[in-house]
């Protein structure tokens, strides 16, 4: 267990190099094997994880450029642990579900490379290292969308790349500026996040830095009005690209908000609370309405992703244990559910080569098993109690209720709208009579698709009924972080707010 984090990060990378040698016919099996090992490693990490220790565990540190303070610094806590497992799990599932034949070798290698960057983002505790993985994750996704996508794939891929790259440009200046502030305060350079947590920044500086980081994270989430790259990317991306994009890559933005923005700039976070929450509510409602208007199944799910990410932002900026824990749990559940939904759309697209809702109808009679799984996932997406989607959404909104009941009410309408567009989609596609002859002969799920989808269904139900083991681990680290925020807050108004949302209303 000494170097388990390094092993988890770099195992896929080593596999990438070996992958170049493996022949085309065997590469998919190789990819799945590597993903299984990687997933098991992350489970081992979970087993070894001390659930009573809220701080960073399995920490690995050695200086990379000592005179400039750049170091190789990895660590895991309750916040990042499950995101790592989500990354390895969804990579595995998406590789199982993979049925692309064209240039399969390049694809599998790219996916494994992507897995390395995703895990690296969640485990980095050095800001420069984080930035490296953050930027590096763009390259494989660019290639996946651009090479295996459909329609205007090149345009979509470039748009995705440029948006995210340009967004994080300012973050780089922010990082360097913070590093310099640390240098001024202590006389040594450091880019490590735990070091930075000790830094108390003047309010004005916090505002600027919050802005610089916000842009990078907001593009990634994606927050309104920077969301326009997402439907494009999803629209053109192959199934596996969409799954990984929605399930894991979007979470990088919200994770970064929790890991960096809140604890580094508590006063600025409070200062920008209402504007950010307003944007999030616009995301929730606007994206839900746009989703309703879509005729393409994949676009419906793409916009529903934006809508759900809005609720994650709301939970994050509630800045209390319920909201933050809910937000993190919602990241996991949205990862699983949206991943599953994109795979389901992929299934039907493989059979009919169209994703238009009006091309279908009465699928429930032709493909009963497919319809059943789609139904479960739809319920989870809507946030039905006892499914995984409910827990996170409920906690996020509960957390934000302490901040503002009115805004929570608006955000809550998003759930209703969500039910509307999802149920309408389900009704149009699955119920009624089979109107098109092509649909009458469709095959139900085959073994490969079944293997990929069943674990997701199981998780949706199990974690929906009994989320406690995950919630308690997350909660512990979240509380530690909120304590840190409270300690660091400069302005009395921020302190007051943090105490109010965390302790009143209650029995504590």
């Amino acid at each position, binding site marked *: 267990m000494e170097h388990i984090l390094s092993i988890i990060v770099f195992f896929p990378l080593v596999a990438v190099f070996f992958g170049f040698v493996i022949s085309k016919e065997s590469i998919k099996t190789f990819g799945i094997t590597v993903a299984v090992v990687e997933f098991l490693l992350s489970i081992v990490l979970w087993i070894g994880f001390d659930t009573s220790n809220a701080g960073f565990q399995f920490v690995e540190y050695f200086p990379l450029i000592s005179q400039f303070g750049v170091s190789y610094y990895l660590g895991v806590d309750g916040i990042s642990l499950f995101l790592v497992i989500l990354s390895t799990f969804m990579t595995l599932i998406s590789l199982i579900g993979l049925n692309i034949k064209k240039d399969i070798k390049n694809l599998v290698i790219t996916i494994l490379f992507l897995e390395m960057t995703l895990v690296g983002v969640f485990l980095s505790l050095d800001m420069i290292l984080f930035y*490296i993985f953050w930027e590096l994750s763009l*390259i494989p996704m660019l290639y996946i969308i*651009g090479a295996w996508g459909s329609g205007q794939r090149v345009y979509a891929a470039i748009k995705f790349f440029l948006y995210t790259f340009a967004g994080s440009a300012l973050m780089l200046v922010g990082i360097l500026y913070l590093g310099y502030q640390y240098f001024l305060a202590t006389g040594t350079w450091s880019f490590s996040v735990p070091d930075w947590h000790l830094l108390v920044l003047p309010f004005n500086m916090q505002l600027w830095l919050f802005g610089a980081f916000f842009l990078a994270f907001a593009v990634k989430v994606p927050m309104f009005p920077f969301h326009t790259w997402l439907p494009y990317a999803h629209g053109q991306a192959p199934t596996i690209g969409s799954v990984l994009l929605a399930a894991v890559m979007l979470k990088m933005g919200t994770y970064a908000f929790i890991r960096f923005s809140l604890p580094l700039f508590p006063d600025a976070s409070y200062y920008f609370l209402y504007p950010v929450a307003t944007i999030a509510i616009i995301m929730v409602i606007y994206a839900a309405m746009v989703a309703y208007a879509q005729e393409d199944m994949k676009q419906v799910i793409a916009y529903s992703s934006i809508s759900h990410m809005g609720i994650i932002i709301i939970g994050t900026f509630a800045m209390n244990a319920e909201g933050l824990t809910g937000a993190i749990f919602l990241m996991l559940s949205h990862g699983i559910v949206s991943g599953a939904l994109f795979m389901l759309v992929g299934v039907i697209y493989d059979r009919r080569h169209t994703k238009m809702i009006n091309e279908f109808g009465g699928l429930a009679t032709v493909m009963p098993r497919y319809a059943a799984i789609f139904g479960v996932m739809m319920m989870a997406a809507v946030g039905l109690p006892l499914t995984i989607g409910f827990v996170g959404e409920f906690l996020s909104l509960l957390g934000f209720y302490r901040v503002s009941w009115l805004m929570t009410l608006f955000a809550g309408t998003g759930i209703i709208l969500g039910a509307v567009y999802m149920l309408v989609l389900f009704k149009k596609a699955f119920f009624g009579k089979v109107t098109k002859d092509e649909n009458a002969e469709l095959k139900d799920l085959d073994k490969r698709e079944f293997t990929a989808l069943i674990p997701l269904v199981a998780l949706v139900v199990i974690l929906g009924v009994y989320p406690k083991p995950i919630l308690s681990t997350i909660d512990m680290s979240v509380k530690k972080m909120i304590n840190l925020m409270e300690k660091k807050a400069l302005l009395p108004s921020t302190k007051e707010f943090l105490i109010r949302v965390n302790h009143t209303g209650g029995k504590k």
Partner: protein
Amino acid sequence: MLGHISVTISSLNIALLAPMAIISFGALAIICIDLFSKNLNKSFYVMLSLLFILLDFTTLIGLHGSSRGFFNVMLVDGISVLSQGIILITSALFIVLALSNKPFMEFKKAEYYALFLFMLVGFQFMVATDNLILIFLGLETASLSLYTLIAMHNRNKAFEAAIKYFTMGALAAGFFAMASLIFYALTGSVELSVISKVLEARNYAPGVAILAGVVFMLTALAFKLSVVPTHTWTPDVYEGSSAPLAGYMSVVPKIAGLVVAIRFFDIFLHADIVWVQNVLIFLAIITMFLANITALVQEDVKRMLAFSSIAHAGFVLTALMIGNTQANSAIFLYWILFMFTNMGAFTMLWMARHRKNLWDSRYQHPFTKFSGLVKVSPMMATIMGIFMFTLAGMPPFSVFWGKLYLISAVVDSGHVWLAVIMVINSAIAVYYYMKLIVYMFLKDPITEDGNIYVANSSTPIKVVVGIALVFTITASIFVEPILGIVTQLMKSSGL
């Protein structure tokens, strides 16, 4: 009447001259050998030049500390050793590229190698002195050799390039002479250290004369550094020269120019003369923006790389204006990292060199040429892709670390807004580098014949690509020692 001058051998400090002497000897030796024995293979000349470069390099690293010699004309300090080192390493990589698969006329001639070595002498003198006259001599020796090297490529475009470069260079030389003249008239000396002292004692008056001198010098250096608006020769000259020479030109003359610029502007930056700083900032900003935006619309990879090298020059110019140790170290760190990647990228073009313009009547390396390269030659596409992403400043490859340290230097000097402009520019720049990647990875191939892309490749060329690639990828490990050496040398030269 001159008084009695006593000269001792030790006061001449002949060791300082050893690196240049070795190279000059090498050049003369090549000419002599050519007199006696014609028809020697190019590999002989290449390896002989390489040997002299290595010899030069070993004597160079023996020099350390600031020392002057030859009546204060020579100045070999940290910055001089460092820049000579960069020049020599680049030259070593460059000369090997002559061993190409396809025969080229210029490589058969001994003059090519002699001129090349003389050019090296020029550049080495240029950075190893603070005497304006010797700088001028070095600059002209190097430039005249370089013009000839370009012309020896023996294509119409090459002649055009050489003449264009020559005309522009002559203009720059004129400006340089004017600037030297003005400062000599003002201070009675052509040594920058003396000029600095006299000007300081006189409190930088008269302003008009200094303004004129700085403007002339700035223009002269701007030509060499291809700073906007004196950059117009760059894309045409790069296009006309062979790919290795273009890569060489985007590294070596610029580092030599940068050293002179650092020495020269240090006088004014130390005295906090604001307008000099402002002019430099302004030039840096327009250089970055114009070069990056123009690069977006290029149809030829070589021209794109030409504009990219202008943009990179603009990038480091921002640090020139700060003028403290961190900023000057950043310039050299950036340039060392940039050198390897840039040489690598141009070498890739050299490998893909073909006698005929197969795809476009106008350009040798249009973007379309590389369509779908990943399907034809995956290895080559991946390597080229890595070079492109590196030039764009993607982490964790080499140029990223230079960019990081450079922007950090700008942030630390309090110019956060300038840092923002720099990152905006790198966001613009990523588009044109990505354009090549999009062509290579996302488009369909236009030919099944992979040999076209490696027509000119040979084992030595592959070795050069390999060195550049390994260095580019594993730069994260090298940054620490390089930065240590660079910072130490900067401190020792008091910059």
